[in-house]
């Protein structure tokens, strides 16, 4: 019998052991291939307007993905090897030469890896079409995905995974040389000792968590420097990391031990069995739990934050570009040219069309404001009210002769109280006039342009100033269903040029935001899915290994008179703990971190994070729930049949 065929026989015989590992491999390959094939897809790159950003983001994420996938594969490989140490020891005792065994393990690993690679790429080809459609749907493009095989992606996937497979194969080759025979035999017995309670490390764990939460939740200081950011959140992160580990390692042990104290509860029903089993397993699981909790909280955070960007894109765009089209009037001929383009678009009929006269003047505030206000843009009360009305905002102002209302500068958080009781001095060629602030409104009328300092003044005042300083006139249009006005926006943009820092048409700004957000959302979603599936699988594998080790345990219980139903219940409780604990800690961490992020983000762009965060959490819980059910069923099948 050749070595190769012995290895093949082995794989056949140990199918169950191999299966889990095999699935891990295929899964990683599918994910990676899908990702790279999207990255290289010309169809997708053509169809969007931000392809540079996209390929950059894809590039960075694919590196993260490789790292993650490599770690995941190495982890499950060591897991899988541990299960086989005994078998390898047996070969050695039966008199197979070390070299023969080593070669056998090498080939085995290689064969599994290559088969997995072929299957992975085939499945990946199918799946990448699906994911491409999801991405395009998210971006709101209407391209058809006719998505073939990407040779570039295949080559890259093959190279990356052949390296990983070769590495694990060499590990397999070295297995027999790395351990003494006795170690191979007792491989499965390790880690089964009742953990000691360490009150000190439990207390330190709790303290570290409290400290890190406190650091994260602490309000921002007045001066927000990079140094502060690194120091404060760096310490917070380290404390969170160690605290989480100690939490799983000591605090849970302590709590479980505590629950054993209450004998009349503990000695009642199957609680005694569950508690003691959990106690036994917890040390071995502490590291996994820590990784899972931190990974899931990071994923929820990123997912929540990116989703909220995506989610609030329309709202943000409405703020930045209030009207569907806006442009500076450049004479009747030019204006009517623009108008006729917009009017020609019958699918987006005009709802409102306004002229917005703006006077730019120099102004001096009666107080210190860290915002460059000049030139101040004046608009009249009636213009503001008409514009707000056209945009369906119910803000109106009515001002007596020489009072003024300020429009909150965009991307700032100034409140009414900042302007209350203060005034601004407008400087005109011959004179200057002092206007007290009476109001602050939040509706914007023109696309964003820095500095964004608009002042609403009374109609009389406006007319008076207009005599001395000629106003500029902006033409604005609001059309039905502006989010789809692609063709017209393109034409208008070409004609009017860059009147503002942002695009002059709503659609363009909206679409760019949507695409950018869609890509980040897609990538984080994708990575999140991978992390989620990987962490779920890790718990799943662990539980299954445990189930195989615990067969005898449950057999004894059945002999003593625990019914199958009760055993199932007991398995459910334990699995709930094993899945629920890291997830709960992860969610808690992510809530705290997101609280910080949302403070940070709403400072910047003013968006609401609650819905997107909840969505991300619910999504997480659902996927974990699926894994939970899967685990309970398989566990039950192993020990309770």
């Amino acid at each position: 019998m050749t070595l190769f065929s012995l290895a093949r026989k082995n794989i056949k015989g140990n199918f169950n052991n191999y299966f889990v590992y095999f699935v891990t491999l295929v899964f990683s390959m599918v994910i990676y291939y899908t990702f790279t094939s999207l990255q290289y897809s010309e169809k997708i790159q053509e169809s969007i307007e931000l392809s540079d950003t996209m390929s950059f983001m894809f590039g960075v994420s694919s590196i993260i993905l490789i790292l993650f996938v490599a770690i995941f594969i190495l982890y499950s490989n060591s897991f899988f090897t541990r299960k086989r140490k005994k078998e390898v020891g047996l070969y050695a005792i039966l008199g197979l030469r070390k070299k023969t065994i080593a070669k056998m393990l090498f080939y085995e690993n290689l064969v599994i890896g290559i088969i997995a690679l072929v299957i992975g790429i085939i499945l990946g080809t199918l799946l990448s079409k699906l994911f491409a459609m999801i991405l395009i749907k998210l971006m709101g493009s209407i391209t058809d995905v006719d998505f073939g095989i990407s040779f570039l992606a295949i080559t890259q996937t093959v190279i990356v995974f052949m390296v990983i497979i070769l590495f694990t194969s060499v590990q397999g080759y070295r297995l027999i040389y790395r351990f003494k025979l006795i170690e191979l035999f007792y491989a499965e017995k390790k880690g089964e000792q009742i953990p000691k309670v360490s009150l000190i490390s439990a207390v330190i764990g709790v303290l570290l968590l409290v400290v890190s939460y406190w650091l994260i939740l602490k309000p921002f200081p007045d001066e927000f420097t990079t140094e502060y950011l690194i120091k404060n959140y760096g310490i917070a992160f380290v404390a969170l990391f160690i605290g989480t580990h100690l939490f799983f390692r000591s605090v849970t042990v302590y709590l479980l031990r505590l629950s054993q104290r209450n004998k009349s509860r503990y000695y009642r029903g199957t609680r005694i069995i569950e508690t003691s089993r959990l106690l036994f397993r917890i040390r071995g699981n502490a590291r996994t739990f820590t990784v899972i909790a931190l990974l899931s909280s990071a994923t929820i955070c990123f997912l929540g934050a990116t989703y909220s960007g995506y989610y609030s894109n329309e709202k943000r765009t409405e703020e930045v570009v209030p009207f569907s089209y806006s442009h500076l009037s450049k004479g009747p001929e030019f204006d009517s040219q623009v108008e006729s383009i917009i009017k020609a678009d019958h699918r987006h009929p005009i709802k409102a069309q306004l002229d917005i006269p703006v006077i730019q003047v120099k102004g001096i505030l009666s107080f210190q404001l860290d915002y460059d206000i000049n030139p101040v843009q004046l608009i009249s009360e009636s213009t503001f009210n008409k514009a707000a009305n056209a945009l369906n905002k119910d803000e109106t102002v009515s001002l007596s002769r020489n009072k003024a209302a300020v429009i909150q500068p965009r991307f700032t958080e100034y409140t009414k109280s900042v302007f209350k009781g203060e005034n601004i001095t407008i400087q005109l060629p011959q004179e200057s006039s002092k206007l007290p602030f009476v109001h602050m409104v939040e509706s914007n009328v023109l696309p964003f342009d820095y500095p964004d300092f608009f002042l609403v003044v009374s109609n009389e005042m406006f007319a008076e100033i207009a005599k001395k300083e000629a106003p500029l006139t902006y033409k604005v249009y609001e059309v039905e269903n502006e989010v789809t006005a692609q063709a017209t926006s393109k034409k208008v943009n070409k004609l009017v040029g860059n009147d503002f820092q942002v695009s002059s048409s709503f659609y363009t700004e909206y679409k760019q935001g949507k695409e950018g957000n869609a890509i980040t959302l897609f990538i984080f979603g994708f990575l999140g899915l991978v992390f989620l599936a990987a962490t779920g699988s890790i718990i799943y594998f662990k539980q299954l290994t445990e189930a195989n080790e615990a067969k005898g345990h449950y057999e004894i219980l059945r002999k003593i008179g625990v019914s199958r139903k009760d055993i199932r219940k007991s398995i459910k409780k334990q699995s709930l703990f094993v899945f629920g604990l890291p997830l709960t800690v992860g969610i808690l961490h992510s809530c705290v971190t997101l609280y910080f992020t949302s403070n940070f983000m709403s400072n910047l762009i003013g968006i609401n994070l609650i819905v997107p965060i909840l969505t991300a959490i619910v999504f997480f819980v659902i996927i974990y729930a699926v894994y939970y059910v899967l685990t309970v069923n398989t566990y039950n099948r192993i020990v309770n049949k």
Partner: protein
Amino acid sequence: MNIVVEAKQIKKVYGAKGNIFSALEDIDLTVMEGEFVGIMGPSGAGKSTLLNILATIDDPTTGNIVVDGINLTKMNEEQLSAFRRDKLGFLFQDYNLLDTLTVKENIILPLALAKLNIKELERRADEVADKFGIRDILNKYPYQISGGQKQRTAASRAIISKPSLILADEPTGALDSKSATDLLESLKDLNEQDKATILMVTHDAYAASYCNRVLFIKDGKIFTELVKGKRSRKEFFNKVLDVLSALGGGANDVI
């Protein structure tokens, strides 16, 4: 005196069509309250199979079993579990202790499962721990104690719920002679003082000599039966050896 076990026409067949193997054939067995019955026979004779069937861990292909007035063949899984918990005590060669529980927790497990109140539970735990002399190892874990101590722990667990029937499958199989004698003495005390009914499978003639009655099984059938009666243990031991050599096959199992 009451009948504790009444098994009639027990048959156990393993395997599917074409490859049928019959492990037990028409076994009849009656055990009275307070009896200490031994079951002997060559390896593969069907002793463990019979015990497992009586223990409701396995079910017979045909036949009828009544334990303590309850017909086992008519019960569903949940009722059987409750029956095992409340009426039966087990003792196995490999102890079957849960390594995640301390000695004490192992012992009280059946009572905890039956949700007995804590006071009574503690009282009984003390009682059996004293009986088997394992008081000072109560807080240790199984991996920290010796084989003999493990078996005494298992025995404590078997009797703590005051079962109607104690089933033991080669309980002394893994013990040295001193530990084996200790255990057998304890079982004898239990039988004589507490009137416990015990059914014990053994390969060891010395262990069998502690019984009131020994059944011999060969090829799934009852071969013969020996009753101790007024004989001394030494005499009974020799009798058992005689039957074993007549039985053949099993003779090499005798030490």
